């Protein structure tokens, strides 16, 4: 835009970007006060898919809760399971065989690519380009087929157990993953040619919705939202866990703070995930996938915290235990919750189409916000 526009706050109408809307990825309601096409005020209303996972955490035993994690963020479910099992293993002192840790890292990265592919397709579709969604979903099908062969599910995986995994990977999986990596690299080049270089696309995203590092710190946003504003924060590097210190990968950081920077960060993240998968497949050790003796889960009273980097940011899980069979309190810190929160404050004065593009660049999955 070339000229500054004055917004007249007393000539506004309320537009309900309602719970049912093609652009909100899930049931999310944003009450927008608009002056023509400009947003004067926005208020996000969540809770339409609140299922109270934290209460279930108190009522279910530790193994029973394993299923709940993938229902939170269904697109990147393995990252959440990973955080949960790491926490319980840390608190109960369970040793994990190395092979299980490598397989966990490989599958989490595959899941991350699948989640980013879906985000990419949905984001470009929100902007009006309908075709890249189909290409992205086809690439994602390869990943889902691979993961289905070893875990049994396409989307809501319950693959990890306390101490390791329940099913080992076979040669078919390794071959399929090795074949997938060059194919995905070629696809990424294609996406960059088709979408990133397109001038209409660039004009839709460049300079839109700038987020300063200060506002990101105040809201605690992570993942591409923070990395697109120059904050070099990735839990896998800042607070290493599991077997990630063994891998050599970069964390893409862009400094322009706009929606295009967040888009570029996620596209670069897919490339880095491919590197991790390659190295993981090369270094995959033999051995068992579960410890020989099954220890009962006894957690000393106290509180424990574990953070992992999922596709959407830093997922934190806090366990307050009183020594019993079920947790005393289980808190799930959802990354999209903090990312979404800054939408209300930042979208003032934007055009509605820019605000919806901004929402797309935040990569929202509403069931994760509502838990």
């Amino acid at each position, binding site marked *: *835009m070339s000229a500054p526009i004055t917004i007249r706050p007393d000539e506004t*109408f309320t*537009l309900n970007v309602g719970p049912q*809307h*093609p*652009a909100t990825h899930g049931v999310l309601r944003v009450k927008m006060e608009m002056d023509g*096409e400009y947003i004067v005020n926005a208020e996000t209303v969540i809770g339409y898919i609140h299922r109270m996972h934290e209460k279930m955490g108190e009522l279910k035993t530790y193994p029973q809760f394993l299923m709940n994690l993938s229902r939170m963020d269904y697109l990147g479910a393995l990252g959440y399971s990973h955080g949960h099992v790491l926490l319980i293993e840390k608190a109960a002192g369970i040793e994990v065989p190395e092979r299980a840790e490598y397989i966990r890292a490989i599958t989490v990265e595959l899941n991350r690519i699948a989640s980013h592919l879906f985000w990419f397709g949905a984001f*470009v*579709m*929100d*902007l*009006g*380009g*309908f*075709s890249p969604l*189909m*290409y992205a979903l*086809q690439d994602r099908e390869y990943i889902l087929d691979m993961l289905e062969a070893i875990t049994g599910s396409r989307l809501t995986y319950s693959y990890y157990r306390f101490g390791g995994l329940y099913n080992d990977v076979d040669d078919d999986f390794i071959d399929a993953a090795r074949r997938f990596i060059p194919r995905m690299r070629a696809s990424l080049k294609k996406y960059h040619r*088709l*979408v990133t270089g*397109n001038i*209409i*696309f660039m*004009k*839709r995203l460049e300079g839109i919705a700038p987020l300063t590092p200060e506002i990101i710190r105040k809201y605690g946003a992570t993942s591409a939202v923070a990395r697109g504003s120059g904050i070099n924060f990735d839990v896998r590097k800042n607070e290493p866990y599991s077997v990630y210190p063994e891998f050599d990968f970069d964390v893409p950081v862009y400094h322009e703070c706009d929606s295009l920077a967040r888009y570029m960060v996620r596209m670069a993240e897919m490339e880095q995930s491919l590197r991790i998968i390659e190295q993981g497949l090369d270094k995959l050790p033999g051995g068992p996938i579960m410890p020989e003796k099954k220890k009962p889960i006894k957690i000393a009273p106290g509180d424990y915290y574990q953070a992992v980097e999922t596709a959407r940011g830093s997922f934190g899980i806090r366990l307050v235990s009183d020594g019993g069979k079920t947790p005393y309190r289980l808190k799930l810190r959802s990354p999209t919750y903090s990312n979404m929160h800054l939408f209300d404050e930042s979208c003032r004065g934007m*055009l*509605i*189409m*820019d605000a*919806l593009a901004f929402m797309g660049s935040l990569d929202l999955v509403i069931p994760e916000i509502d838990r």
Partner: protein
Amino acid sequence: MSLTLLNVIIAVVIAIAFAALNAAYLVWAERRGAARIQRRPGPNINGPFGLFQPPLDGVKLMAKQLLIPGDVDKILFMVAPVLAMAPAITSFVTIPFSDHIVGHNMHIGILLVFAFASMGGMALLLAGWSSRNKYSVMSSVRAVSQAIAYEIPMLITVITIVMITGTTDLMGIVKSQAGGFWHWNIFPFKAGVFNPLMLLSFLVFFISSLAETNRAPFDLGEAESELVAGFHTEYGSMGFGLFFMGEYANIVIGASLTTILFLGGWDCPFGLFPGVWWFLLKIYLLIATFIWIRWTFPRTTIYGLLNLSWKILIPFSLFNLLLTAGLLKVF
């Protein structure tokens, strides 16, 4: 006397039938084209290559309940789709397909087509306003400002062509380009008038027709992911069907006008066998490009759209007009 009247009536009916058939089967072509681009089959179950899909869709749309929401302005609500569809199909009457295939040729054919196109813009406004729905109003506001902004470069380009050819009669315009592609209006060398900007003029006209017909990348009026379905959110069944058909009829008219004004109408590229098949070939190539563009590019923003028209296309077409006028005067 009565024979001429009968001729006219038959010609008009055939023109309208051609438009309607095109509108119906362009949907099929668009769905197959989109599917090809997206690496999936597209409609292929109903009939060979899915060719029975449009009539079956038409039957489905007609059989659905014609739901009119309680709060709307009933008369305007029902008039709007008719107003979207009728002018588009009626303008077909003056478009010449070949030397002797035309509904009813008029000396001011071009003016008639544009007059009817402006009525289409009014239909958008009526549809959005009568729906009593904030999304629809927002989208028709966008669509009307877009329609106004893009009519202007189109008309200025048309004036340039009319100045070169000296007639507003569509048949006359085509006849003046007869004899091979070096006589077509798109090329710079024409009857001694050397105007290097005509190719860009063609692009201006092409882009403006994309915008006038609300096709992506300029489909802000129907921006599905933002405004649910834009100005036709509240329309179901046949109302929606009429809007749809009106849009495709507009596309065919846009392609026909581009062909007539710039690409020589029914003229063969090497001047050998002019005929209606060249005309049809050209308009279907243009329509295939429309479809290709729609499924490749994302949507522009509203200010990007309006900037493109007011700041780039209009100054350029005005410059072209003055340049042509100057060249005509000099040579």
